[in-house]
């Protein structure tokens, strides 16, 4: 019982879970305690490898053969889950505890209609007759705000979008009125505008419900937006537990502080602030240091930290696993990590002509003509991936390209690199036109133009050592001798802060962040004029992401390269870029300086994007502007303004039929592709302040 007299729905007490690895048992969750009250949304945050997934699998009693619960107890109201056998657990699954997984498509039966799947759950769990179950399932589809519930009920899972699939799963998880709902990264695979809609839905649905919710995520912004309480996990341990507001305004564990500082805030730019990072990396399971688990990475570790701290109650209803929490609270010490160098001084460009100039670029992929089209002699359909885009990057500057999946941002990168051919328009590098095909480009052109790929695991040959991968561009593009190349490899490894013995290792032995460092070193090896980075940090954990972003900025100022930085994350792009282009469905919507991004007028799409970002600050919970529907298929390209089908500020006829003009705002220098006059936009849009949490500095 807590002081309000509420009995917790879920009460985990000193739970330890271990996995068998050969002859030894490694602890993946160590002495974790947490309580979730009825109607509470409880956030569980941690980076990959922190043990958060193991914890929920233990709650579900679904650990697999090699996992076992060593000690502790898990109480669901009055039932001790650890005492139940499998037959009894079966009654708990899907009724008392339900789960919404990360990947919705693989959790839905592809051969059953959505309505039937929901009805089956209702019939099985609540014993409803088929007619009543059918009726109830349509009610639930309506409750999760699917636009046309009757129609959706008759569709198959692959016919609806990822966001809609996730809504179906939420309906399925809630329809049995469970005591505990577990959400496992439910929005990680979704675009930011879709994520905003789902988060809003979760907030509303849970509002007056008794269900306790365990929300597992790596995204601090999401936690701040939906959760009432947050627990932070690090290397198998729960290090801090507090009400959301308290945790973000004053974290009492150095790791929490580090996580919050690693996030680029909207409005930060690389010229104003260097991202703080947590030094070192998360220890592998069972390999943590004795004593305080965070000791080796902690900026304020002292002698006492060699003994393991308990989870200490720190003030009212919060706790921290740090010996020095009271000093942090009083403010006598700061757990902020020191940034390792000062402001980067960037020289003014000495050459005025742009490094890269893209003019009216179009990339269309023809689809094979259907038999009917062939008979009628109609032209085949095309996927209009990029549909008339202008870009310009000046020397030593960074252009950020932001867009959701399917917006054509990667296709632009591949067209610049010569990996796909363009259909129309021109691409000039250093004022000289770039040949379309890679094979027509000279070695010197290739040297000037390099790329970092999204997935670091696939970017390095698994059968070549790191050193061999790095040496190759040096031998080919710089014509170095073997000995010179080896010396340069050592310099490169140093520049990306990797120990030199890593040169002998195979990529399989490196972590994702380390692999991305190698990939960045390889791209910078030939000293390119233009570097294209395609989502270089999206697959990395927050603290690793910060280190990589710092590294990129540092190498850029050393090498004086221009960057084309592609990402779906507005905060990341506005941090690294000197200019931001927002792209939607193969067309640019807005071009802005990062400093002006938050000042009206906005393009309605940018406005929606900005509103959709979950900010890591619970005091800034905003009502997002919802975008209806999904990004259209680029085969059926809408006419007029490509955004008109989803635009919240749709004017009428003109948007659907005529291409909008590029309007230039005198005050902010923004260029906006919209029919609505800028003055009008400005009045409609309230001034968004660049949000910085109260606790910083």
């Amino acid at each position, binding site marked *: 019982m807590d002081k309000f007299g509420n009995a917790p729905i879920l009460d985990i007490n000193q739970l330890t879970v271990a996995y068998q690895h050969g002859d030894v048992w490694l602890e993946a969750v160590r002495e974790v305690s947490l309580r979730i009250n009825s109607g509470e949304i409880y956030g569980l945050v941690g980076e990959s490898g922190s043990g958060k997934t193991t914890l929920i699998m233990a709650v579900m009693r679904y650990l697999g053969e090699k996992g076992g619960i060593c000690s502790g107890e898990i109480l669901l109201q009055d039932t001790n889950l650890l005492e139940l056998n499998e037959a009894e657990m079966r009654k708990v699954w899907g009724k008392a505890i339900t789960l919404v997984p990360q990947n919705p498509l693989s959790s839905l039966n592809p051969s059953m209609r959505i309505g039937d799947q929901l009805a089956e759950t209702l019939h099985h769990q609540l014993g409803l007759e088929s007619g009543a179950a059918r009726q109830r399932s349509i009610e639930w589809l309506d409750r999760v705000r699917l636009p046309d519930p009757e129609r959706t009920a008759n569709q198959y899972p692959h016919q609806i979008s990822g966001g809609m699939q996730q809504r179906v799963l939420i309906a399925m998880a809630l329809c049995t009125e469970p005591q505990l709902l577990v959400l496992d990264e439910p929005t990680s695979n979704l675009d930011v505008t879709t994520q905003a809609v789902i988060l809003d839905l979760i907030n509303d649905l849970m509002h007056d419900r008794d269900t306790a919710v365990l929300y597992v995520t790596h995204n601090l912004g999401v936690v701040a937006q939906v959760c009432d309480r947050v627990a932070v996990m690090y290397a198998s341990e729960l290090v801090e537990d507090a009400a959301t507001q308290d945790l973000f305004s004053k974290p009492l564990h150095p790791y929490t502080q580090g996580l919050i500082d690693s996030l680029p805030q909207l409005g930060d730019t690389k010229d104003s602030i260097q991202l703080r990072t947590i030094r070192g990396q998360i220890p592998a399971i069972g390999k943590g240091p004795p004593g305080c688990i965070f000791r080796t990475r902690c900026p304020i570790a002292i002698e006492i930290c060699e003994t393991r701290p308990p989870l200490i109650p720190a003030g009212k209803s919060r706790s921290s696993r740090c010996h020095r929490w009271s000093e942090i609270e009083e403010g006598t010490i700061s757990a902020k990590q020191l940034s390792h160098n000062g402001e980067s001084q960037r020289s003014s460009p000495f050459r005025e002509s742009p490094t890269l100039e893209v003019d009216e670029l179009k990339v269309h992929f023809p689809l094979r003509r259907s038999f009917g089209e062939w008979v009628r002699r109609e032209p085949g359909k095309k996927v209009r991936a990029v549909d008339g885009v202008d870009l310009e990057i000046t020397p030593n500057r960074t252009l950020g390209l932001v867009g959701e999946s399917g917006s054509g941002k990667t296709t632009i990168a591949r067209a610049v*690199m*010569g*990996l796909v051919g363009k259909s129309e328009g021109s691409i000039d590098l250093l004022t000289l036109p770039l040949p379309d095909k*890679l094979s027509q*480009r000279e*070695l010197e052109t*290739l040297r000037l*133009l*390099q*790329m970092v*790929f*999204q*997935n670091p695991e*696939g*970017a*390095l*040959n*698994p*059968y*070549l050592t790191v050193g061999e*991968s790095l040496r*190759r*561009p040096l031998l*080919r*593009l710089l014509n170095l001798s073997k000995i010179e190349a080896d010396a340069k490899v050592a310099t490169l490894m140093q520049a990306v802060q990797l120990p030199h013995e890593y040169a*002998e290792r195979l990529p*399989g032995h490196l972590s994702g962040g380390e692999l991305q460092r190698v*990939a960045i070193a*390889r791209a910078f090896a*030939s000293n390119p004029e233009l570097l294209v980075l395609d989502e270089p940090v999206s697959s990395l954990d927050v603290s690793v992401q910060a280190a990589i972003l710092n590294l990129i900025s540092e190498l850029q100022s050393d090498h004086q390269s221009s960057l084309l930085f592609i990402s779906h994350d507005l905060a990341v792009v506005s941090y690294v870029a000197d200019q931001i282009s927002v792209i939607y469905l193969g067309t640019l919507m807005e071009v802005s300086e990062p400093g002006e991004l938050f000042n009206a007028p906005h393009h309605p799409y940018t406005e929606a994007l900005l509103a959709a970002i979950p900010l890591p600050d619970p005091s800034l919970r905003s009502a997002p502007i919802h975008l209806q529907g999904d990004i259209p298929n680029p085969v059926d390209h809408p006419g007029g303004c490509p955004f008109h089908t989803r635009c919240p500020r749709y004017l009428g006829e003109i948007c659907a039929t005529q291409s909008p003009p590029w309007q230039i705002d005198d005050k902010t220098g923004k260029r906006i592709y919209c029919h609505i006059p800028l003055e009008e936009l400005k009045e409609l849009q309230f001034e968004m302040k660049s949000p910085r949490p109260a606790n910083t500095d």
Partner: protein
Amino acid sequence: MTTGQRSTDLSLGTATSWWRRLLLFARRLFSSPTSAIGATITLLFILVAILGPFIAPYGANEIIASDARQPPSSTHWFGTDNLGRDVFSRVLLGAGEILLLAGLGTLLAVIAGTLLGLLAGYRGGIFDEVIMRVFDSLLALPALLLALLLLGTVGRSQNSVLIVIFVVYTPIVARVVRSVVLAVKSQGFVEAARLIGESQAYILLREIMPSVLPTLSVESALRFSYAIFLVASLGFLGVGVQPPSPNWGLMVKEARTYASQIPWAIIFPAAAISIVVIGINLLADGMKRVLQATGNE
């Protein structure tokens, strides 16, 4: 440790690491009983093929007229056939020929199949389309039918048997290699190599080939065992290697007429065929298991 010592360690390191990898591979292979049996059988037959001419007590076509149709005994371990030839000696001497023919044929098929598979998978387009459709039409015919067809046109000799193995197995190897190439070629590391202007040959052989090798080695072992079976089958049908060669298939064919009188003249060569084919198959399974486990590390 001084720098000098370090560099010697490293240069040794590459050599020893290959040796150690091989040892590790062998140890893992022998850790499972079935693949250990497979490997032992294969090694034993290769040994017999090499040493056969030195240890065989009689010549392949040496006729011991007085001892025709003798059952197995201490002088003729596997008995003698209807002409009075020693079956044990013929089985020993036949191993060399059948393994050499099958091995050489497989090797040629693997080389050609790998090159064509790499090119077809990597280049795609018309080139891929043409090659794969031709191979599809070859694969549509049963292997033995295709073999008979070919032998009808090129005549019956050892060389024709080689050609048959080559034509029958090249498409299969090419398809397997192509499928791996398709999975690998869109990976970042291949595109990164293209972006530094590597030649097509370098990308195929240095970047893509290492990923193909595990699958290819398993496939080659399997093809080898099927090739042995094919050589024996052709011998049995009388369209491959011609008498008086000690081909196992041919031996079964020749003794077939007298099956009730001299069953040993059929049983021993037939057993040799089955044992070696089963052994190599077990070995291929083991290799697949070990390579997959190593790949997951």
